[in-house]
């Protein structure tokens, strides 16, 4: 029973070290209040990107509706915490958001996941738009197009950090397990996977729901940190923002999504003063990557502790040999 092995300890160390480093940076003021926004944005983007990568990269389903699920999570948590402005309220809000999003993802997923590539993309786009329009129309509950404000600021950055680590853990555990392998097989060759006994509908739906649930968590944390959310925050543009991170980092690489979210987060800060030019640069980069290196930064490989350990072992073996 290898519950605790070298790899697990390695990752635990990385997670804790990361937290301590960030805490140090915040206390000493390297990360000022302004940069804390960047930090939180990066953390939430990691949650969103890793979840989207599960859907697109691991199960091979091209979903363009991520913003819709994020919206459900954001509004659910936002509304609940306005009534219950406590930590319990926040957790309740996140849980409710996840459950609601999962139900919507299930209902949407079962008929649409049958569709192939481009059709699925457009269908999910349509679903996200419908979700947004519904939110705008539920004036009494969501305050319509004006958005929801005054959401209690409960998710401080350490809490978001914890959720980020948990999300990465959840997705990594899933993809590197037997059901995860079955899911990846669907991406590789759906017909062959089905012939090998893999219930393709079930696993595509599970990946879709898991991805949607993480988007809801991201949305909820976003609402609780920024205190104001508008339907306009969750348009197709948002879905594409997350897609850009996934593509840059490598479709099918969790660590790729993490690295890309961090790099792009910093890049955004530098390019902020350039306005629309910033998006032009991203658009060109997106096209360029697709033409010249469609696998992105890490392809579908992972930057892993065990990988590092293996490298280290190989080097020391060579030294001794």
């Amino acid at each position, binding site marked *: *029973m*290898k*519950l605790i092995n070298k790899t697990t300890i390695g990752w635990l160390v990385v997670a804790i070290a990361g937290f301590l480093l960030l805490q140090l940076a915040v206390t000493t003021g390297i990360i000022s209040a302004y940069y804390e926004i960047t930090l939180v944005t990066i953390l939430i983007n990691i949650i969103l990107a890793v979840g989207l990568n599960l859907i697109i990269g691991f199960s091979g389903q091209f979903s363009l509706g991520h913003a819709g699920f994020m919206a459900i999570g954001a509004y659910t948590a936002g509304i609940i915490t306005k009534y219950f402005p406590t930590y319990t309220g926040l957790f309740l809000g996140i849980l409710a958001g996840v459950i609601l999003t999962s139900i919507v993802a299930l209902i949407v997923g079962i008929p649409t996941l049958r569709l192939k590539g481009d059709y699925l993309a457009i269908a999910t786009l349509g679903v996200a738009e419908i979700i947004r329009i519904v939110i705008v129309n539920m004036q009494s509950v969501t305050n319509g197009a004006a958005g929801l404000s005054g959401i209690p600021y409960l998710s401080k950055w350490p809490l978001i950090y914890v959720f980020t680590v948990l999300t990465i853990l*959840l997705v990594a*555990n*899933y993809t590197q*397990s*037997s*059901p*995860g*392998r*079955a899911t*990846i*097989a669907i991406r*590789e*060759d759906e*017909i*062959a*996977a*089905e*012939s*090998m*006994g*893999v*219930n*393709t509908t079930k696993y595509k739906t*599970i990946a879709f729901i898991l991805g949607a649930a993480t988007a809801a968590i991201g949305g909820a944390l976003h609402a609780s940190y920024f205190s104001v959310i508008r339907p306009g925050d969750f348009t197709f543009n948002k879905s594409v923002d997350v897609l850009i991170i996934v593509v840059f980092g490598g479709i099918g690489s969790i660590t790729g999504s993490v690295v890309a979210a961090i790099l792009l987060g910093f890049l955004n800060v530098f390019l902020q003063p350039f306005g629309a030019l910033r998006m032009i640069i991203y658009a060109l980069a997106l096209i360029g990557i697709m033409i010249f290196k469609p696998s992105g930064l890490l392809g*579908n490989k992972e930057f892993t502790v065990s990988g590092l350990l293996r490298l280290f072992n190989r080097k020391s073996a060579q030294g001794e040999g």
Partner: protein
Amino acid sequence: MSLLEVKKLTKNFGGLSAISNVHLELKENELVGLIGPNGAGKTTLFNLLTGVYQPTEGTIEIETNGQKESVIGKKTYTITDMGFGRTFQNIRLFINLTVLDHVLIAMHSKSKIGTLKSVLRLPSYYASEAKMKKEAVELLKLFSLENKQEELAKNLPYGEQRRLEIVRALATKPKVLFLDEPAAGMNPQETADLTDLIRQIQKDFKITILLIEHDMSLVMNVCERIYVLEYGRMIAHGTPEEIKGNKQVIKAYLGGE
């Protein structure tokens, strides 16, 4: 009791009759061949038997737990679970995955490892994984592929890819194995090796094999019975000797009076 019984099977695509009034029967532990000129409908028949296509008419029944059950309307993965494995005419491997992964994936549906257990990494998960890996490596050993466990399928030489295709199908623990042109693109030596391999599989795994092949040496050497398909119809059925001398079969392949 027959493992598989096919009666009056017909498949029409619009105005074209791809399979017409086909009867077929498979018993336990047999090696049966399915031959016919190109376009005769052999792969279509495989696709009908594995639920990829739905028949226009006719019945397909398999034996499970002593009962006869119809396959029609069932999904492919259910049919695989019921005991039918297959390989593909144009290899369909998971090219970016390792050899070991192929076997593990094929073993997944029988392993019953749940999503929740996997995500939470409960101890029972680790036990299942270890057991599955051990079984998988044992299977790969039988086919001399265990040294290539971590190799990506796309990096394997063609012959080994074909072998992996068969091993993967075997990992689903089938009662009946459908092999679709396993010797395609092989030279005589490779074909001879494959012939031995197929015999070995039938002996060690005690399963029934239905083999589509164009290579007559392989078919005549290894099959106990042969079905012959032409333009979607079954034109002959018998032992290799009977088929070799059958005038209709000869005409189907060579044409002429």
